[in-house]
């Protein structure tokens, strides 16, 4: 059995809506209990002299044709209206739930018949079904209750059917079945307890609906018959006189809305609580963004080579409301034609850095940078249109998950062609021609046919080729590839990497390749940035990365790459501990808690990126203190180079 429990009531009272709803329902229930004994005789006292009055001092909500006070009648009618609604809902649940469980118990053919009958009944509007059934059973309260019960029963049947089906597939049911527990006992002991909560929530929501349906039936003259009276019947009487004394409809109308709203709100807030408990995260409390105080040791070497760089980004910081700062003081330069790699664990801020470069951050994110030059210029100087055109044509992005990143509702040709249509004013036909060419250039077979395909008709590798072709539709100067091979088969990965390399070579575009996989990055790139906890901790070329990484984190990352010669008897090398989150604002090196070489200084003072030698920068107080450990002793380096080459 799972440990699922019923709705925790104290939870409910934490939301104001839940409190209000609970109070409303409580008020209705109390009224239903106490109103008839207290006001019963006042409500049915006939006073012909005061017949058919509007609002007076004695009768604030008017009187009916026999001079009976409407306010008191409304209060007294609470019992009958609510009682019938509750009765109808319970009856509906009592009939519907067993019917819904039935298809799981009887044979397949009968089960299918029951299922399609349920579908038909669910498609049928509640009120109509209630009217038809009530007309068979006979007019009056009994007919109305049975009618509404019959009308809501299909919903319970459908719900319990889906729930039973989902639970029936669960492991513990399979286990019980193996133990030889019979079908009935299985249902009662194992299935029902696990589906009880959603059924209870539905019951609550159904009561609100039943109340309205009942009022509707009485309004039509099909429901409660005189001399009994409920809100719907009173509404009908009032409606006949709405021209003369409109006040008389107010009592019953307000009562109906109040009660229905109470039940619905209570059901909904219970459902929301239940959903939240099932793993939905609470929303972040909005609070002013605190940017971390940064001291930069500006490096002479990096100064002022404005021209010729594809990307020159300094001091990028990305923050979210609530104090999360997932990217901190990141600087990247990309030369024309160069492929720069960014590696790091998930959560290290690689992807957000890329999205910040591409100006695709979510609207909540706030990004700041000291300098941001793209394609040799400051984009903020361009107008909105010019900037969009430049980015649309010159910046290509390849995302991690090619299935999710292609629009399932549009065919491939449309998704490729629109880039050229929008930014270069090509006609649809010309754009399609270019799409075919680009698909051919990424080696997709029979591209004339493929442009008419939808994404779901393509394989994963093919989809990623389409994404690359999409980036090539313009004249890219920079390609950002964010984990382009992570979601793909190992066999396809190599082809996609080759394709990216070729795309760069043939167009002369520079590229930023983001991956958690050091092997992937070192295959295509010459220069690599290692990111940890939102910061660049080391920047170096690939040969140095493989032989002498200076930062303990880089060394650990490298050690975790298995090679052909890794000892299979030993567990795979992993980095102990967990990375600090984007909310962490403690001083010192973020890697210190996991670092074998950490000193007191590491824990109190943040190391900044400093040059170690030409082209090699590291943010560490004790560089070169940890030698990467993996592979057989002695020959380790050459073996690793083989593996990474």
């Amino acid at each position: 059995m799972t440990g699922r429990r019923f709705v925790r009531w104290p939870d409910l009272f934490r939301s104001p809506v839940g409190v209000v709803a609970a109070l409303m329902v409580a008020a209705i229930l109390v009224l239903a209990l106490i109103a008839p004994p207290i006001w019963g005789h006042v409500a049915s006292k006939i006073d012909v002299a005061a017949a058919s009055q509007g609002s007076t001092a004695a009768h604030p909500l008017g009187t009916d044709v026999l001079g009976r006070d409407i306010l008191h009648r409304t209060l007294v009618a609470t019992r009958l209206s609510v009682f019938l609604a509750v009765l109808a809902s319970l009856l509906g649940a009592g009939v519907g739930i067993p019917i819904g469980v039935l298809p799981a118990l009887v044979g397949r053919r009968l089960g299918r018949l029951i299922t399609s009958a349920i579908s038909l009944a669910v498609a049928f509007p509640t009120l109509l079904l209630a009217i038809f059934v009530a007309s068979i059973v006979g007019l009056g309260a009994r007919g109305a209750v049975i009618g509404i019960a019959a009308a809501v029963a299909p919903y319970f049947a459908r719900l319990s059917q889906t729930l039973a089906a989902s639970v029936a597939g669960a492991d513990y049911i399979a286990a019980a079945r193996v133990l030889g527990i019979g079908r009935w006992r299985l249902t009662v002991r194992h299935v029902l307890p696990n589906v009880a909560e959603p059924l209870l929530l539905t019951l609550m929501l159904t009561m609100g609906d039943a109340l309205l349906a009942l009022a509707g039936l009485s309004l039509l003259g099909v429901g409660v018959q005189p001399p009994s009276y409920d809100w719907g019947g009173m509404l009908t009487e009032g409606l006949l006189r709405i021209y003369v004394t409109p006040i008389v409809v107010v009592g019953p109308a307000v009562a109906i809305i109040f009660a229905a709203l109470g039940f619905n709100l209570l059901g909904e807030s219970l459902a929301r609580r239940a959903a939240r408990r099932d793993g939905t995260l609470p929303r972040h409390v909005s609070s002013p963004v605190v940017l971390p105080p940064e001291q930069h040791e500006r490096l002479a070497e990096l100064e002022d080579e404005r021209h010729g760089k594809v990307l020159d980004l300094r001091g990028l910081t990305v923050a979210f409301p609530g104090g999360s700062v997932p990217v901190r003081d990141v600087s990247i330069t990309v030369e024309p034609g160069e492929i720069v790699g960014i590696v790091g664990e998930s959560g290290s801020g690689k992807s957000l850095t890329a999205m910040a470069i591409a100006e695709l951050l979510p609207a909540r994110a706030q990004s700041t940078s000291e300098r941001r030059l793209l394609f040799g210029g400051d984009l903020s100087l361009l107008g909105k249109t010019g900037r969009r055109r430049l980015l649309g044509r010159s910046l290509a992005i390849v995302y991690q998950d090619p299935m999710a990143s292609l629009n399932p509702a549009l065919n491939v040709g449309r998704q490729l062609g629109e880039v050229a249509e929008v930014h270069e004013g090509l006609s649809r036909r010309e754009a399609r021609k270019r799409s075919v060419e680009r698909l051919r250039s990424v080696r997709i077979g029979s591209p004339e046919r493929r442009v008419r395909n939808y994404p779901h008709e393509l394989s994963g590798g093919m989809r990623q080729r389409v994404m690359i072709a999409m980036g090539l539709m313009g004249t890219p100067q920079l390609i950002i590839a964010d984990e382009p091979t992570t979601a793909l088969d190992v066999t396809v990965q190599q082809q996609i990497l080759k394709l990216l390399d070729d795309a760069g070579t043939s167009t002369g575009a520079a590229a930023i390749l983001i991956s958690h996989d050091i092997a992937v990055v070192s295959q295509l790139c010459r220069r690599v940035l290692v990111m940890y906890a939102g910061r660049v901790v080391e920047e170096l070329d690939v040969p140095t990365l493989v032989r002498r990484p200076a930062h303990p984190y880089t060394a650990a990352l490298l050690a975790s790459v298995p090679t052909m010669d890794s000892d299979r008897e030993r567990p795979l090398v992993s980095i102990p501990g967990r990375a600090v989150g984007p909310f962490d604002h403690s001083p010192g090196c973020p890697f210190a808690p996991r670092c074998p070489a950490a000193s007191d200084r590491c824990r109190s003072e943040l190391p900044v990126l400093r040059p170690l030698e030409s082209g090699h920068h590291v943010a560490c107080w004790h560089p070169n203190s940890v030698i990467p450990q993996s592979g057989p002793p002695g020959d380790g380096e050459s073996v690793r180079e083989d593996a990474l080459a």
Partner: protein
Amino acid sequence: MVSLVLLLTLTFGMIHFVPGDPVRSALGLTAPAQLVKQRRAQLGLDKPLWQQYADYVDRAVHGDFGTSITSGEPITEIVRTRLPTTLRLAGLAFLAAVLIGVPLGVLSAALTRDGRRRYGELAFTTATGAFASIPGFLLAVAFIYLFAVKWRFFPVAGESGPKSYVLPIAALAIGPAAALARIVRVEGLKVLDEDYIRTARGKRLPARLIYLRHALPNMLTATLTISGLLLGGLIAGTVLIETIFAWTGLGSTLVNSVTAKDYPSVQAVALIFGAFILLINFVVDMLLAVINPQSTISDQ
């Protein structure tokens, strides 16, 4: 197809579920035995059950719904004159609900995306939530009081000229419009959060194209499914609205037949409404198959 057979069988069975003799209870205890016998014969209730069923299906297929027990008129004629009113009411209300609900939902999704405009979001959910849970017949009462009795903008009841359509359609459409707007908004937020919308942004398409070409088609599946359900609900809503506004449509016919125990008429209306709901489901399924290349036509 299975559903249609089920529908025919259930509506046929309806008259036989009535406790006692339906003709006797419809005409009253004082009716002469001769008249009861004549009406029984007219309805074919004296024939064996299987033959009654065969006749019923045969006549229903040819659009013949028999005669009313109470008035003796052919029901087909009643349906022919009153169905258009109901269809007009439900159709116009549906149109209004879609034209208001969908743009409202898309707009609020676009404006409150990413947790922006918290108060706008709160106002939207509160307002639509309230309108979605107030039943149409109460709105109708409120509208009659305000716009017909107090300010006399529109007629209180009856079907005469375009002005008389405003209140019934408003009362019928506001609830579904609010419900639709809520669903479209939730669906819109989900779609705008998808990776392919980021891809579209990455292509630097104008906002118009992002919303209309990339987001909207992906929201249609849920929107259409819900719209189908709402249209079915609107047809049911006409029963109350026609009664309140004193229109002579199929809905008010149903109510009168039920109170008069005119079972063949109830049977005919049940069959027609049921057939419409099946038709709506079928059309929705077809449309879903057309707009969504991944879904296939389901067998229901």
